[in-house]
């Protein structure tokens, strides 16, 4: 028997942070989460999978386009028509989704949210236990109320949880590994955590990760887990990749680089590695330049031109989207001496240093300067992943870049 275990599909949740530019592979990526699901269904049919489990967060809660549900329904129909039994539940993202509540899935079993239920698949000799979220913020230990394993069948626990907590994920439906082990199930199919993790092999407790990385923090291969069961025992647990695009963080240590051109060469090499590791997929890469370097000010000052140059070079490397060229370097040279050698420039550097050390003063003095900009920005641009021009963070970042620009203007950098 083959069991497919997937979670966190987040269908139609867009890839974030991908600024369009000439030559970027936009067309190939704009439906990536859908394409990843289609890949999964194709593989399931080819592999002649018997049971498909979806451990929650199939949709985003605030997403209102019912077409998303219809698309999912059509893909589920492909599975059931091919003889695959489908069992799923709602997680925190789709607990209150109108799509989840209204959509009828053909021949699929969906767990309710009032209490734990058991879906018995007599033909397969399988009992799947599970419970959907009734609301996004579930703080109860749902697993504790799951029934004990049924004798003589292969018992699976389907659960959306962060266990005892996982970085970057809300601690919903908290439970311990012991809670799970005590139920006597053969396999716990978990969802919610977007990075794949085999938490335990006895019993098997697995997060399959999400199907498609959607932003720069969701790097690496993404897909589902294929479980093979023989004679009522797990024989293999395989990681299968169905992602369309792969996010990569290319960290470049510029410590040894003297010029921006050297840094670009290093970045190009890192991008080449990322493309080689992506198994032929498009790579959405965030290039982060770190280290203490003489090129710090030039990198910040010429940031725009360097980003354009790197994006231009990326076309030679392969299917690649340079999402961001981020400068996180430190200045190798101590500028404090400028006070003595060039007092006028030293005074500028000192003033910037003072603002850096006193962010309140920075906000008080320059926050208002960007008030009109803030008013014009859409709310989403100022959200959690966006930028609020009057905030301390945004002003501090701007201060660093401004310092580099001024040093360039005042002749301290950028000369041969």
């Amino acid at each position, binding site marked *: 028997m083959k069991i497919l275990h997937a979670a966190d599909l987040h269908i139609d949740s867009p890839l974030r942070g991908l600024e369009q530019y000439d030559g970027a592979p936009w067309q190939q990526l704009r439906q990536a989460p859908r394409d990843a699901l289609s890949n999964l269904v194709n593989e399931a049919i080819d592999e002649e999978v018997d049971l498909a489990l979806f451990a929650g967060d199939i949709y985003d809660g605030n997403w209102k386009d019912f077409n998303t549900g219809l698309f999912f329904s059509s893909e589920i129909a492909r599975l059931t028509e091919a003889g695959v039994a489908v069992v799923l539940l709602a997680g925190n993202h789709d607990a209150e989704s109108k799509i989840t509540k209204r959509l009828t899935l053909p021949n699929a079993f969906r767990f309710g949210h009032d209490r734990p239920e058991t879906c018995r698949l007599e033909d397969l000799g399988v009992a799947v236990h599970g419970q959907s979220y009734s609301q996004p913020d579930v703080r109860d230990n749902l697993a504790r109320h799951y029934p004990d394993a049924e004798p003589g069948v292969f018992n699976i626990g389907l659960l959306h949880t962060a266990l005892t907590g996982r970085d970057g994920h809300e601690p919903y439906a908290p439970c311990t590994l012991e809670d799970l082990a005590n139920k006597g199930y053969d396999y716990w199919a978990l969802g919610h955590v977007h990075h794949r993790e085999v938490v335990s092999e006895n019993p098997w407790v697995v997060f399959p990760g999400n199907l498609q990385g959607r932003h720069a923090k969701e790097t690496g291969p993404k897909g589902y887990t294929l479980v093979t069961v023989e004679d009522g025992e797990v024989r293999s647990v395989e990681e299968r990749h169905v992602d369309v695009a792969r996010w990569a963080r290319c960290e470049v240590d510029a410590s040894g680089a003297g010029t921006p051109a050297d840094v670009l060469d290093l970045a190009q090499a890192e991008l080449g590695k990322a493309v080689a590791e992506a198994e032929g997929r498009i790579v959405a890469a965030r290039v982060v330049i770190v280290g203490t370097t003489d090129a710090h000010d030039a990198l910040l000052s010429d940031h725009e031109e360097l980003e354009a140059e790197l994006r231009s070079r990326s076309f030679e490397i392969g299917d690649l989207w340079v999402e961001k060229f981020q400068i996180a370097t430190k200045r190798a040279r101590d500028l404090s001496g400028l006070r003595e*050698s060039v007092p006028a420039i030293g005074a500028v550097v000192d003033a910037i240093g003072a603002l850096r050390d006193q962010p309140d003063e920075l906000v008080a003095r320059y926050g208002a*300067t960007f008030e009109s900009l803030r008013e014009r920005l859409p709310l989403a641009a100022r959200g959690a992943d966006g930028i609020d021009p009057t905030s301390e963070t945004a002003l501090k970042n701007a201060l660093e870049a401004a310092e580099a620009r001024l040093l360039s203007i005042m002749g301290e950098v950028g000369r041969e």
Partner: protein
Amino acid sequence: MRIQRLDLTAYGPFTGRSLDLSAPGVHVILGVNEAGKSRALGAIIDGLFGIPEQTSANFVHTYDALEIGMALRSSDGRSLEFRRRKRRKDPLVDPGGSAVAEAALDAFRPSVTREAFEQMFGIDHTRLEAGGRDILEGRGEVGALMFGASAGITDLRAALTKLDTEAATLFSGRKGAAKPGLNAAITRYGAAVTATSAASVGPEAHYRLVREITKLKATERELRQQVEDASRSHAEATLLLALLSTLRRRRELVTALSELMPGAVRLRDDLPDDLASALSRRDEARDAVDEIERRIEGVNARMAEIEVDETLVGQENRISELTAGRDYYRNAKGDRPGLASEEASQRQRAVELLSRLRPGVQAEEAVELTVLPTLAVTNAEELADAANTMSKGVESAQAALDESQSELGEVLRALAEAGEEKDSATLKSSVAACNKDGDLVAQRRQVANEARLLETEVAEATSSLDLVGRQPDEILTLAVPGIETVEGFAGRYDELGESTRSLENDLKAQRAKREQRAVDLAALRASADAPSEDQLIDARNAREGLWKRIRRLVTDEGANVPMADGLDEADTEEVEQIGNPGEVGDPNQLAGSYEGAVADADQLADRLRHEADAVARRAQLEAEITHSEEVIGRLSEELNGRQSEQAELEREWGDLWVTTGIDPRVPAQMALWHARFGALVTQCASLGALRDRLAALDHDIEANRQHLLKALAGIGVAVDSDAPLALVRERAEQELENFAVLEEQRRQLEKDRKRLLSLVERRGAALTNAQTKKDEWEEAWSGALEALSLPKGTSPRSVKQFLVQTQEARQALKLAEAAATRVGQMDDSMASFQHELADVLSLVAPDLEDAETLSALSALSARLAVQTKAMTKRSTHQLERDGYSAELSEARLALTAAEGKLGDLVVEAQAADEPELRARAEQFESLRRTEGELAALDADLRTSSQDRSPVELDEGLGEADESALKAQISHFDEVQRELIGQREGTYTLLTEKRHEFALMDGSAAAAVAFAEAQAELAEIGTLTERYMATHLASQLLRRQMEVFMAEQQAPLMDRACPWFSQLTCGFFATLETDLGDKDETVLIGVRPNRERVGVEGFTGGTTDQLYLAFRLAGISLAAEHNEPMPLVFDDIFEKFDEARTAAALGILAELSEQSQVLVFTHHRHVAEAAKGVIMPGLLTSHELVPRYPGAG
């Protein structure tokens, strides 16, 4: 920090030069442009901060040979001496060669980078100009000026403008501003969000649509049913209308049947047909019997006339077979002799062939001898075929072996002749070293050509500049006045000339004016005397008196009134005065007198007025003449003064050039001369560099030549020691080529030797192998001869011939055998033919027995043909008669049958006889026809009504007539139309809803639109960051400029103002600030007379001097609190005249008390000027042009 000493050990054009810079005060370093001065400047910077990876200082010395030495001393007394080389490892070493850490320099150049040093402490003419230009473009805006000058920035204002422009292209806070990138991205984001909403579908909408579609489908179904019902009713009425006539006919038939049925006898349905058929057949049979009996009689009569020979006809088959064999008999009889001859001939040929190998053989032995054992024949043929190959194999192997041995011998001889190899390593390395330097001779030739061309140009320029006889080095050191001085003199010349010309023109004009006034006055004086005023009064009185008389005359109406009575005393006087009293009493005369008096009075008045103007004019002319004379006097005096000034200026001008030995032309011409002289100096400097390069090349050429000569001598090749490098090099390369050729030959011979030794060995083995194979063949050949019973020693060729001839003999015997068999067969056939013919003749034609065989057969055949013909005719008649007999029998049978049938029908119809039968049949036929028509009508009705019952149709019709049916059809038409309209409306709505539903197919349109919105958000983020950085940079810089100005304006102004005044030679007394057009603080120059001039009114040179004043002020202020760094000035006096140069040097001397001042120049007059301005103890002069004699 001060540079105590600068060693140009190996750098740029310098080798082993050293500058002692330890003396206090100003150091003026005189050097030629580019080749020397700039390199020395570069050496200071490279010495302090390192020689860059890529440098152009290597055109004499290679990279690894570059070296600069320095001795430094800090203000706190520390010192450091080092040498810097261009290498990655240990670039710094102390005088003893030990490595010195780079950090050791930090104490002497604390926190100063190479860029900062160049920016802050290096000032050249270009930077000075750029700074001045920025001041002018900024209209003297104080903030940018002071900050920029203090930071050594020359284009601060432009940079600020660029920042602001860039920010403006990114974002505008104005509503509706769409052009900036961020505003546009925000707009695009809004559009994408709207597109997302438009493409999204909620679950409620989805299910509402599902409900609507379900409802519409039910409505549509119901309407469809109603339409169908109406359609059916319509169809029913239409059908009845269409069948109306048929149904009426049916009703008639039913009535007719009911009338027929009581009297009719129902017969078998086909009885009437049977009756008609039987009657017809009986009549036909009677006619046939009669006709056939008549024909039989005719045939019998024709048969009785024919006779036939039955015996002859009985032998017809045998005669036919004989006729068929006649051709074979005739041919066999002709061919037999030829075949017998062929048999004998082949047998004879076989015997002859066998006799060639086995003499004396008999014909009867022939067959046996031609049979040979097949295996022996095959074996012998194969061996015979291989015989030639065996022989040739041995021969060719022997020949190849001989050839290889011969070649090997030749190679060994050549190797012995080639002898031992010589050592050419030294020669190779010498040539390689020579090649590495490139074609030095060609380089020298090129440099020499360039030098010659330049010499020619220099000579031409020297001649055209009136410097004939002056050498280039002399020209380089020629202290000609600066261009500013020359232009100053030109300006003064022009000014003075202009002023003098103006005075002369004024004087000339004034004199002309005075002359003109004098002429006018004389003319005025010469004009006629003017009348007096009294005369005018008298004339007017006369006119009035006359007028009074005229009036009185007119008003008193008469001449009766004595004239005298009418006049008072005064009137009388008037008349008297007029002098024409006699006319008083005559009115006509009186009128004439009055007119004359009026004209006189007017004329006098006019003359008097005219005279008054003339008097005034005369007085004015006299005054103007007096004034002109005064002006002329003053102008003449001024002109004299100008002439004296001109003389003084010319003397000064001449003195200026005395030291140069040049007789100057006027300053304007000398300004042009000066520009050309500048070019000449550059040419002279270049010429010097080329000459240095020539010397270096000569040195390298000689070194290479000596090395090559030594290497050639080392291999025993003697070359003339005076031979030029090219010749020696050519010889060396030739020798190396010879070495290479000999080596190659030797290598090739050795290779051939090894190859041939191997070949000889292989070919020897091949020969042995061929011989062995030949022996094995000979043994097999003996066996083969024995198997064929042939004698030993028979050659393969003979054996092959033997086998071929044996085969031919065997073939000839086979042919002879075949011919004999054929002759026997012919003889048998001819005898059989003759015997059969004789037998037939004896039976049917004994008269032909004696005739020749073939003739008898022909006659017999002719007789048989005649009898066969008669026989055939009789048979034909017989057959005809038999046919008629059969027909007659059949006709008689048919007649009997027909009559029987009629009898049966009478019985069946229960009739008494045939006539009654006929009557009953007719009645039955009428009944049946009516029933048939009714059935046909019913069938039609069923067909037309889709198989409905006719009775039902008849009932449906009822009593309805045509008009009633048409009314029904019209009604149902109307109902249908109405229902169809409703149904179509419902269907259209349903189609729309279905289409709407079809769009909810899981489309990704909304998701794609949202993804596009996310992409726009990403761009908004990027542009926001970029805008913030740019705008903040601008804000920070402006604020810091304000802070800087608030803190530094006063001390900077205090220091810069007197220096600016000094640099402008007092043309400006000081500087003040004011508010500009945009309320910004701007600088104003204040002249000694308090006239205020904005910087836009400054000349280019003055803005440069303004920038310099603030630049020096900034440096001076900074040096008060920090380690003072050496100040390096690179020809900053390009646009300074002599006085301003002197003023600037004075300020630098003042500054040298704080910081070390190094002034690089290629103008000797600057160095000379320094001597005149700076105290001897504070000035050290250096020269960096050692290549030119006389340069110091």
